[in-house]
């Protein structure tokens, strides 16, 4: 039996800077090939720590205190640097959060789009350019030949994000980490970008880890969801289950807090304080159990 694409097992980490405050508590999740998995939580919930761990860019201030992070059965946390670099950019790529800062202002779109194709696939010359044009067409950029010769400042935010998506899918990765790829964009552009990511991932049957704080986005794009709070998994399951039949009061409250397009006039209820008290009590309780055992 082949192992799942990504298997996180009982991963714990703490931040040295905040007096060894835990940032991940016993997190486990599985990701199969071709699956879109939402990592949801407010800021500080640990979702981007997981994403950074997958990309191998955990800051030096974060220490993994236990658990495994396996990619195709190999533990990424103990993988030698050389193997990690080979993996990076080829099997695991990133769609970054802010298209304004994630493109080098001094390099053409063509150069940045084809980095992966050149370095990882060894494409050169006409083949490289054809592939770049194909990629831009795939992400529905009109006049791809002109865009290839442009510099980032000549493109709109939505266009840049399309370029970054194309670059992320270019080397044919097995896993794409999408780090809140729509937060920095206009609401009108957001939907298109979400649809585009979904279509690209279906066409290339790529697995996607979708990091977001927005359950509404998750509902549109993800197959499965893991909901985090303060570094702990609160609830996980298929998107349909979690949205339709939420088990945990926090999940219910989050769903109630989002706008309900199906029932106008409802929703947008703030998460009540009582629920945060419950969460804190649960996290403190499980921490005690861990230390006791």
């Amino acid at each position, binding site marked *: 039996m082949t192992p799942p694409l990504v298997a996180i097992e009982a991963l714990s980490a703490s931040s040295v800077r905040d007096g060894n405050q835990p940032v991940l508590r016993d997190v486990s999740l599985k990701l199969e090939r071709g699956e879109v998995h939402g990592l949801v939580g407010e800021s500080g919930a640990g979702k981007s720590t997981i994403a950074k761990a997958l*990309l191998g*860019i955990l800051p030096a201030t974060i220490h993994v205190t236990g658990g495994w992070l396996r990619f195709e059965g190999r533990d990424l946390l103990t993988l030698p640097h050389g193997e990690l*670099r*080979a993996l*990076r*950019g*080829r099997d695991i*790529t*990133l769609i*970054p*959060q*802010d298209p304004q*800062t*994630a*493109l*080098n*202002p*001094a*390099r053409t779109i063509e150069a*940045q789009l084809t*980095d*992966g194709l050149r*370095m*990882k696939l060894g494409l050169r010359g006409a083949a490289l350019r054809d592939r770049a044009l194909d990629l831009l067409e795939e992400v529905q950029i009109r006049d791809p030949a002109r865009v290839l010769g442009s*510099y980032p*400042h*000549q493109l709109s935010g939505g266009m840049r994000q399309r370029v*970054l998506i194309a*670059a992320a899918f270019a080397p044919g990765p097995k896993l794409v980490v999408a780090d809140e790829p729509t937060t920095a964009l206009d609401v009108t552009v957001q939907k298109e970008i979400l649809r585009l990511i979904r279509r690209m991932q279906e066409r290339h049957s790529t697995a996607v880890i979708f990091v977001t704080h927005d359950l509404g986005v998750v509902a549109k794009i993800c197959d499965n969801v893991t909901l985090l709070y303060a570094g702990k998994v609160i609830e996980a399951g298929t998107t349909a289950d979690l949205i339709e039949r939420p088990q945990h009061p926090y999940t219910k409250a989050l769903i109630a807090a989002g706008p309900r397009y199906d029932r106008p006039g409802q929703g947008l209820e703030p998460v009540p304080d009582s629920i945060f008290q419950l969460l804190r009590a649960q996290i403190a309780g499980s921490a005690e159990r861990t230390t006791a055992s």
Partner: protein
Amino acid sequence: MTLTSVINRLGMAAITLFGVGLVVFVLLRVVPGDPIAMMISPSATPADIAALRAHYGLDLPLPEQFFIWLGNVVHLDFGTSISLRRGVLQLIGERLPATLELTFAALVFGVLAGGIVAVAGVLLRRTPLEAAMDFVNGLFLAVPDFVWALVLVLLVGVLWPIFPLSGRLDPVHASDFMTPFYLIESIVRLNWTDTGDVLAHLVMPMLALGLPLAAVIARTLKEALSEAMVQDYVLLARLKGMSELRLVLQEALRNAVGPTLTLTGVQFTFMIGGTVIVERIFAFPGIGNMAIDAVVNRDLPLIQGIVLVFGALFIVINIAVDLIANRLNPRQSHG
């Protein structure tokens, strides 16, 4: 840069040069010590002296002298050197190439050495080596070219005599050259013996001029590179699997080079000023060395000519730097 702004800059440059000329002119007319007195024999009669004064136009009222001089300068007539009895323009033409070859060699050295140190510093960040490099760099920043030139004289003169310490080339080779651009000419003619000799003579003054420049470039570029290295696009490129060296050279360098370039331009103009003393120390026959002789000999036409040449160089470099900086910024050249 638009055409109008270039014309604007040239206009300002003309005013500055006019000011430079005026300042020198006025300054020199209050010099105590009559230049004529130094060139006549003790047996000369007052009539001889008056004739000589009239010959050099020194008997006219000051404003008139100035405008005659200015008119001549516009026609590229800088007059005749009193001490050397030759055309000022001709003298400058013979000496300026030496200074130009020296400063450009120092510029190339400074940019290369400073660039390499900056890149190495970024690659070695947070290691003890980085701190050591910063310390040495601090020394080079604090201590000026005059002192470095003498330190080099000391090192090479006493401890390790590998390079010649004075002149521009071995007199044996002097007859090999048809132009005053010795380095360029010897390379063009593929005469490697001469090239080697010219380069050996160039090394010491070049280091004295170029080391402080390298230090400035190293510090500014390193700061700019470090700033660029934490940008999102560098992180993304790192995730694409690029090596650190490639990240620095391909991703960060082009975005970091702007402020460094501007500063390099400023430093380069300082360096041209520095040639005056460095050429003196190494007995290098350039325009700066000649300038000091001219002052010591109260050679008014020669001093005026040299100062104007320095002023013009200064302005040309500033404009060139602006043009290059504009070229390198994609936002302006393509936008």
